[in-house]
C-alpha cells in the first residue's frame, strides 16, 4: 500500500475530490468510489473496451489508466451521455435496432460510438467496424450494433442540418 493522495476529477460535469492510492485504476474509482457503475470491467488488459469512457475528448479504456493519471481531467461516462429525459440518439438507436443483448458491453460501446460519430459524422459500415474495433461484444455479432450506429448517425445528421433535413425525414417516414 502506498500513501493516499488527493485527487480531483470532473465526472459528467460534477467535480469530485477524494483521497486514493495512486495505483487505483480509474475504472474502480468510477465504479466503486463514485458509484458510477455504467462502465464495466471485461478483460483488464485493454482489449475489450467495456470500460470505455471519454477523457478530455478522447475514447479511453478506464481499466488502463491510474486515477493519478486521470486527476484533473474531464470524464464522461454513459451516465453523462443521456438519461430518461434526454436520451442520446445512440441510446435510442441501440434500443430500436436491437444493438445489445446482455447489455454488459453496451455502455462502453455507446460511449465509444459518441466519439466515433464526432470523428466521422457519417461513417460507412467499414468505418464503423474499424472505429468500433476496440469494443468487444460477445452477444450481438456486431451486425445490429453497426445498424444502430448508422441509424443514430442519420438521425443526428438530419437534426444538425435543420429544417430541410426534417423535411427529408418526413419523406423518409412517409415511405
Amino acid at each position: 500500500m502506498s500513501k493516499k493522495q488527493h485527487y480531483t476529477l470532473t465526472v459528467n460535469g460534477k467535480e469530485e475530490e477524494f483521497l486514493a492510492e495512486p495505483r487505483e485504476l480509474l475504472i474502480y474509482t468510477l465504479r466503486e468510489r463514485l458509484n458510477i457503475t455504467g462502465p464495466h470491467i471485461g478483460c483488464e488488459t485493454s482489449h475489450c473496451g467495456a470500460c470505455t469512457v471519454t477523457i478530455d475528448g478522447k475514447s479511453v479504456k478506464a481499466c488502463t489508466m491510474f486515477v493519478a493519471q486521470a486527476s484533473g481531467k474531464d470524464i464522461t461516462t454513459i451516465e453523462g451521455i443521456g438519461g430518461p429525459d434526454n436520451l442520446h440518439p445512440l441510446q435510442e438507436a441501440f434500443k430500436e435496432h436491437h444493438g445489445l443483448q446482455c447489455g454488459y458491453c453496451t455502455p462502453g460501446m455507446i460511449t465509444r460510438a459518441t466519439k466515433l460519430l464526432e470523428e466521422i459524422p457519417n461513417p460507412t459500415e467499414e468505418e464503423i467496424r474499424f472505429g468500433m474495433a476496440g469494443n468487444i461484444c460477445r452477444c450481438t455479432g456486431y451486425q445490429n450494433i453497426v445498424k444502430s450506429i448508422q441509424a443514430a448517425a442519420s438521425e443526428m445528421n438530419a437534426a444538425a442540418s435543420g429544417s430541410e433535413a426534417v423535411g427529408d425525414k418526413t419523406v423518409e417516414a412517409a415511405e
Partner: protein
Amino acid sequence: MKDDVTSREERVENLKGMGCSRKRVEDARFTQGKGNYVDDIKLDGMLFGDFVRSPYAHARITSIDTEAALKVPGVLAVLTAADLEPLGLHWMPTLAGDKQMVLADGKVLFQGQEVAFVVAEDRYAAADGIELVEVEYEELPVIVDPFEALQSDVVLREDLVAEDGSLPDGAHGPRKHANHIFTWEAGDKAPTEEVIANAEVVAEESMYYHRTHPCPLETCGCVASMDKVNGKLTLWGTFQAPHAIRTIVSLISGLEEHNIRVISPDIGGGFGNKVGAYPGYVCSVVASIVTGKPVKWIEDRMDNLMTTAFARDYHMTGKISATPEGKITGLHCHVTADHGGFDACADPTKFPAGFMNICTGSYDIPTAYLEVDGVYTNKAPGGVSYRCSFRVTEAVYFIERMIEVLAIKLDMDAAELRRINFIKKEQFPYTAALGWEYDSGDYHTAWDKALKAVDYDGLRAEQAQRVADFKAGKTRKLMGIGLSFFTEIVGAGPVKNCDILGLGMFDSCEIRIHPTGSAIARLGTISQGQGHATTFAQILASEIGLPADSITIEEGDTDTAPYGLGTYGSRSTPVAGAATAMAGRKIRAKAQMIAAYLLEVHDDDVEFDVDRFVVKGAPERFKTMKDIAFAAYNQAIPGIEPGLEAVSYYDPPNMTYPFGAYVCVMDIDVDTGVPEIRRFYALDDCGTRINPMIIEGQVHGGLTEALAVALGQEIAYDDMGNCKTGTLMDFFLPTAWEVPNYETDYTVTPSPHHPIGAKGVGESPHVGGVPCFSNAVQDAFRPFGNTHTNMPHDHWRIWKTANGLGLHD
C-alpha cells in the same frame, strides 16, 4: 365495450404478442448504464475475497504460510483447505457426480487451481495479501494428453483409488484406469460393427474438437451476505441456475434451504460459463459466515479463462458406411473426452457425455454406436455446454465432418449426399438409432431453400473456375463452400430422464394478474441477454390477452420465483416458455368462467378472442381481459375464488429438435493462411417464432461465437500444463472488424408437443455455425486432396494445411 372501434387486427397489434418484433424492455436500463450486474452490488462493510492460485499444473503442497499475508493492512483472513475441512467444505460435489476441491487439499491438479482465499477490506489489500501467501510446492509429473493419461502410472486422483489399489466405480460405472472417469455407450455395438465391416464404402476420420471457453464479457462472481441476526444467507451471483445453486448451497453448507436466498441480478452473458458451482461461491459464503460481513468475489479475466468452465476437448474417431450410391448404412463414433482434474461437466445426471448421442445428426442412419471415455488430465475442470445443449456442438461437428469425409470417399457432392440421407418429413416423429425421438422436421424444404438462396450450383461453378485459375497461377486464393445441416436437441428435459443432482429438469411460471389488468409473471429461468422480459411477456400476451407492455417478467430471485432449473441448453423457451403458456391457459380458463358469469351465459357459450371473451355468435357481447381482471378482485362470484393467479410446472414430454441449413463462402489466402468470409447464409427452423428481431440477434451472435471457435479460439496448454491463452491477446474474441454480415432466413416447423410450437434458437447458430465455418476451410482444400484438418483454423493451421498439400512449392 366502447373500444370496439378498434379492429381485430389492431387489437392483435396492441397486444405485442407472439410473432412481432417487439422492442426489448430491458434496453432502457442497459443503454443508460443502469443495469445491475453482480459487481455493481455494494453493501455496507462489504469485504473482498480473492484466490491464491497454483502456478503449477500438478504438484503436492508441502506448506502454506499465511503469516505475512495476514500482516498486510486490510487483510482480515486467509482461508485454506485446513480451515474448511472441519466444516466439511474443503471439497464439494460437482454436477457430474464427482467431487472437486474447494481449496487445494494437499495437492493441485491444474494451473490456476484455488489454493487459499484471502479476505480483505478491498480488492487492493486482497491482491497484496495474495502476493505474500507463501506456498511450497513439490512438482509432480504433468499429464495434459488424455491418451497418455490412460497409459500412465501417474495417478492424478489418489482420492479415487482404494487403499488396496483397486478402482471403485465412479458415478457412471466401472473405471478402467486410475485416470479414467467413465465409459458411456449408446446404440448397438455388434450390429454397427458388422454393418461397417461388410459395407462397400467406409470412410474413417479422427478429429479433435479443441478445448475452448465460453468467455462471457462479464466474468463469474458473487456477493455472499450472512445475516447472523436472522440466520439468513443472501447470495447474489452470476448464476444461470439460481434455484439449483440454492439447493446446492443448502446441501453442502447445512443451512436450511428456506434460509438461503439466491439472486441472479443482470448477467453479462453466460454461454454455459455460469451454470456450475465454483470454489469462489463456497469460499465467499464461508468467509461471510466467518466474518459476519458481506463478501464479494469477482474473477478476473485470467481466472475466468484458466479455471472456470472450459468447453469441448473431445477427441473423436468416426467410421461411416454407405452404399456406393451414397445411402448411409452405419455410424460408429468413439470419443476420448478430456475432463481435466475434476469431472465438473454440467450435464444431466444420466448423460455423462451430454447428448453426444444426437451424433447421427439429421440423417436416417439405421445402425449406430457411440462410446465415450472420460479421462482426467492436469487441466482445468469444466466441460460446460458453451452455447449449446450438452455436447450437441461436438455431435453436430462430428457428423457434419463425417458427411464431408464420406462425400470425398464417394467422390460425391456433399449437398447431394446430405439430401439423399435426410430423415424425410413423413418419417417424423423419428426414432434415431441412438435412441432419441425427433419430434418434427422438414429438412428437404429447408435445404432446397438454402441452396437456392445462395445459388449453390453457381458457387460450385465459380469454385471450379477458381481452382483452375489457381492451378494456372492466376490467383493465390482458394474458395471454400462450407455446408452444414444441423439438428439440435434442446429443452432439457423430461424429468423421466433428465435431472441435475436429482433435480428434475422441469421449469416453471407463476402469474399474478393485477386488478387493473396488468400482470407480473415469474419464472425459474434467468436471462443473460436473451431478452426473456420481452419474449415471455409476448407469449403471455397472446395467451391471456393483456398487452405485453402491461406484463412484468421477473426472474432470478429464489425467494419470489417458482423453482426452475435455469437457463442454458436452449431450454428457456422449450421448457419455461411452455410453462408460461400453460400457466397463461390456466388464467384463461378461470377468466372464461368469470366472463361467462359476467355475461350471464354458460361457460361453454363464451370463447376467447385476442383480448376478450365473446359470447359465441354475438361478438358485440364480450368482456375484455381487463374487465375480467377487475371482476376477479371486486366481485363475489359464486363457486369461484377471488383473484386471478396461476402457476405451472412444466415437465416436457420430449426434447425439441430445432434445425437449420447454413452455407458459408470463404476465400483463403494460401500463402498467409488468412481466411476471408465472403458470405454467410443461415436458415433456422426453431418452430414457432416468438420475436423475429430477437431470433435474428441470437443468430448473429451465435454465428459470431461459432466463427471464433472455428477460426482461432482455443484454450491451449504447453506440456507443463501452463495455460497459454489466459488473456484476450491470445484468446480469440473477434471484433466488429473480423466479423461479416450474416444473411438470415427461416422455415417454420412447429414442435408438435410444445404448447406454442416453439423449439428454442439461442444455440442453433453456434451448433450449426462451427461445422459450417470449418467445412468452408476444408472444402477449399478438397480439390487438392484434403480430407480433414483440425480446428481451430487459425492462420498458421490453415497455412499448415496448404503447406502439407504442397501448395507452397
